[in-house]
């Protein structure tokens, strides 16, 4: 199953309903799409469902893909739309409420630390990630989407503006807003890491 395709070949095979090509597509993009979905929803199961829906949509609608943008761009665009337009099902809401009693935050993933780093740094990293999720949760989803597309996807302001149907100036102000919120929430961590200059 270690096939490799050019994008054009891949699209052609997907249009024929080739399962191998479809699996290849899933393997190639699922991590990236999940990262975007998680950054926006901050919910593991929901991100999982969204990425699954994205691939199903692609499977159904590949015939409509005109190849004016790259497959990757198209996939990411569908993912962001799905994140922002999704209707939260009551089941998901229930699950979220249930978890909010058990553990108010996502249990943070320890940051990948270089070998030999001291436990204190690891602990601080864990706290920082916790603080990051907390701060991002307080930010409207639309603003979070801008932040994710910039920081995780590395997209330009123009690209973000086009994908989210907002003005370039709005991209700038929303990014600034999110960063300010994060900075306020993570003040202690940032002070510790950047040291005291002047």
């Amino acid at each position: 199953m270690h096939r490799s395709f050019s994008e054009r070949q891949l699209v052609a095979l997907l249009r024929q309903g080739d399962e191998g090509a479809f699996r290849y597509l899933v393997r190639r993009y699922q991590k990236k799409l999940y990262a975007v979905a998680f950054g926006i929803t901050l919910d593991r199961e929901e991100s999982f469902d969204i990425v699954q829906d994205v691939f199903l949509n692609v499977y159904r609608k590949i015939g409509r893909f005109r190849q004016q943008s790259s497959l990757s761009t198209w996939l990411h665009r569908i993912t962001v739309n799905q994140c922002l337009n999704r209707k939260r099902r009551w089941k998901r809401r229930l699950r979220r409420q249930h978890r909010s009693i058990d553990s108010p935050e996502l249990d943070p993933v320890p940051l990948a630390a270089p070998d030999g780093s001291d436990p204190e740094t690891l602990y601080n990293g864990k706290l920082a990630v916790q603080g990051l999720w907390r701060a991002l949760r307080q930010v409207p989803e639309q603003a979070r989407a801008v932040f994710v597309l910039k920081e995780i996807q590395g997209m330009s302001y123009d690209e973000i503006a086009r994908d989210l149907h907002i003005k370039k100036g709005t991209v700038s102000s929303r990014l600034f807003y999110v960063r300010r919120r994060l900075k306020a929430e993570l003040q202690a961590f940032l002070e510790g890491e950047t040291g005291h200059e002047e």
Partner: protein
Amino acid sequence: MKNDHRRCDAEALSRFLDNEGGAQETDRLRRHLETCGACRKRLAKQRLLSRLARKAVAGETARADFERLEAAVVSAVHRQRPYAWQHFTGWIPVKKVSIPLATAVLAGLVYFFVAVQRPGFRAPSAIINSFTGPISSVMIIETPETRQTILWFDENSAATDDDKAV
């Protein structure tokens, strides 16, 4: 003045970080950063935040079960496409082949029914008579072996009571 490089401008700094400020603003900020320690520190913090966000999301992604995701996606696709059809399309992957083949199969079936099955084929050979009254219609059809009478009741007059009941 817009070009005042002594003024701290946090939003412009955020654009500077992303290399999105444009030539004039970038130049102004460069000059500002040479003299403003507070903004240099702000910039360092923003860079750290970007790194933290990327690492945190990467950490989340690393723990997700993508084998489960792939299996879920593939099985959902299978549910959309019946198994037999999948094998059929797998066997004949190109429309160039499948359309003429389907046509040939269809032509074969038509020939089979018309030429081979003809003696036993019980299509009506004649409609002998038909009447339509206020309550029902009657049609008498003849096939090679039998003569059949078909009665239709006028459902509109029968259904009116049901409609009222609902």
